[in-house]
């Protein structure tokens, strides 16, 4: 497939004859350069992710200022325990992922596989809780565009009977839920991609691909996973916490 195989043979410079492992691509001088390059590329990709989520955070800030009562009422309908549980799951999964990276760096295959499985389980656990929450919101007619009903926000909910908004403001809870679903949906999409990638990496790690010094894929996947965790670390207070007492 690679048209440079011939070139790669001739291009090996004498200085790295002691270190030319099979995973070193021909256009890099040595493993260190390849690894740094991959890490830098990953960081630039995360930069794009910051801006991708940034657009939604920006919208959230603006609309929260505009429709403050609706955002408070919308936030009141979320389960704080679910948000906290999910935050905990993700933080532990970040820890296990960090340990997986450590296992790859120290070339221990079994621990690497163990930490990867744990990370995967925690990620799937997060998605299950999230699915439960979405189902709940569907049942309570909170999905804008599909089945949204302002009734609960006009008449007050069980937990917050004082949340009685005039109809025009109650309608604005749709904006809150639009952003809620867009943000958690995009986040969950990233989680699903993350878990799938992890499964793929697991298969290759099973064969020992990442415990011979070729840590870049595990390391860069770790960066991705932690980034997704950070997004949730900010979503959690914005969506669940800051309106509790307003």
């Amino acid at each position, binding site marked *: 497939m690679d*048209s440079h195989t011939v070139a790669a043979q001739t291009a090996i410079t004498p200085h790295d004859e002691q270190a030319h492992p099979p995973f070193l691509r021909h256009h890099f001088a040595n493993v260190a350069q390849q690894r740094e390059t991959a890490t830098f*590329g990953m960081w630039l990709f995360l930069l794009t992710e910051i801006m991708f989520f940034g657009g939604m955070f920006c919208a959230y800030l603006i609309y929260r200022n505009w429709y403050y009562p609706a955002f408070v009422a919308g936030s009141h309908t979320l389960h704080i325990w679910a948000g906290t549980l999910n935050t905990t799951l993700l933080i532990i999964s970040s820890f296990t992922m960090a340990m997986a990276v450590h296992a790859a760096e120290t070339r221990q295959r079994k621990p690497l596989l163990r930490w990867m499985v744990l990370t995967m389980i925690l990620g799937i656990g997060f998605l299950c809780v999230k699915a439960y929450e979405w189902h709940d919101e569907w049942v309570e007619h909170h999905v804008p565009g599909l089945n949204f009903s302002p009734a609960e926000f006009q008449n007050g909910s069980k937990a917050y009977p004082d949340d009685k908004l005039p109809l025009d403001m109650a309608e604005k809870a749709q904006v809150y*839920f639009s952003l809620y679903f867009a943000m958690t949906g995009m986040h969950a999409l990233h989680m699903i991609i993350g878990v799938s990638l992890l499964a793929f990496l697991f298969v290759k790690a099973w064969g020992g691909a990442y415990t011979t010094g070729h840590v870049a894929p595990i390391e860069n996947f770790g960066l991705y996973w932690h980034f997704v965790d950070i997004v949730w670390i900010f979503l959690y207070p914005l969506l669940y916490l800051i309106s509790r007492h307003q």
Partner: protein
Amino acid sequence: MSTIVTLPDQSTAQLPKVSYLNQEYGLKSWLLTGDHKRIAMLYLISITFFFFIGGAMAALIRMELLTPVSDLLAADTYNKVFTAHGIIMVFFFLVPSVPATIGNFCIPIMVGAKDLAFPKINLLSWYIYIAAGIMMICVLVFGGVDTGWTFTTPLSTHYLNTNVVTAGLAVFLAGFSSIFTGLNFIVTIHRMRAPGMTWFRLPLFVWSHYAASILMVLGTPVLAITLVLVVLERTIGIGVFDPTKGGDPLLFQHLFWFYSHPAVYIMILPGMGVISEVMSTFSRKRVFGYTAVAFSSVAIAVFGFFVWAHHMFIMGISNYSALVFSLLTMLVAVPSAIKIFNWSATLYKGSITFETPMLYAFGFIGLFTIGGLTGVFLGSMGMDIHLTETYFIVAHFHFVMVGGMLMAYLSGVHFWWPKMTGRMYPEGVSKLAAVITFVGFILTFFPQFILGYLGMPRRYAAYPPEFQVLNVFSSAGASVLGVGYLLPLLYLTWSLKYGKIAGANPWQATGLEWQIQSPPLTENFAETPIVTHEAYDYEWLESKKAREVPTVG
């Protein structure tokens, strides 16, 4: 200082036996290649295809506007045609034009690397581009889309029943292709430079691509999320931009222009890089004020993120905010002017010759200056309120994008054609094409400035009869321009087989890419180059030529 031009005698030049073009044969060797030069060629073919589709749309627009009434095209068809023209030209031609073709081909060689940092991602970026392109073609085949290239809400989300979702996803995908290209460039420029290739020895072409890549990486994701929200709003009915649910349509414009204003710098900066190379090569002088030109690229990239709301002065944003954005817009004129002045100063006392790339570059300087200055008019709020949504805007951005960027692109294609293919284009007919393009361009778009100033609005199929004379001029110019663009397609294709053999360095340019054979080897350099000279050091080139034993082929 010796600046006497002695171009090499090409009659003795031969094509090298092994090059990236003949290293491997067969369709598979192209479609699965990791070679940045082959991917550049794939891009060159695909963007040329889209350029001529977009051009056909432009031809339809100009034919319709030949008469004051909506006779050739019905009004809604006209809307679809100008939308297709805008989307294709912006996202499928201008954004990838120079970076994905010439940049892809030259940047690894210019920094002295064997390939881009991520060859597979480079190939992936082309496939994503093709997928996006196919989606866009589907949009056209299945009835078109009529939002205008800006997808403005709530028009795009509520009032149209055309293929907005497909078009939006096509642009979303094209954006990813552009992100991957930009990401690859940044990493390559940081991490893959040859020994001795310091930042201030990089050709200005690399600097301007670096700046454009920053914009691609930081700006495009905002467009992506905006389009995702538009698509969700259209399909599910969430209410982020929908005023009936409490959303603010202006927020869409903020987010859209947060990308799309920097996007015009994504389009123009690589072109400016081409001009720097061409100006220096054909006046045989180091670019005047190298550091200033290098940093002006970065300055344009940074300022680009602070000015977007000048597209929205009449849309209902706050007056105070508009004032801030109007003032900040003036800042962009400074680095752009630095470039123009420095290129002009490069010519001073240079040994100027007028090969085709240089003619296009001169075209660029004149037309871009007009386009840029009218941009300053439009950036000042009072003028903008009079001129926005008129043909003045249309003329302004065509001067920058077509007069500027397309001229730069053609300049670059001619300049590096010998390097890419190993053969020269025919000089006589290509000079003619450059002149025809320039004349046709002026004839097409200059009348539009006047039309806009007189108040003819854009995006309408019909117009008051008193505007017809100028519109006829414009349409006549467009047909001249069409000839100007068809000619290079014909003679460049012809030159693939019949062009004169170019030899390694037909222009006697100093860049690293000119020190290797044309077309280059797959791995670019037989051995990693060690850079000891500054960019555009013509004395170094002279002494190198004096020392080396002439070997050909």
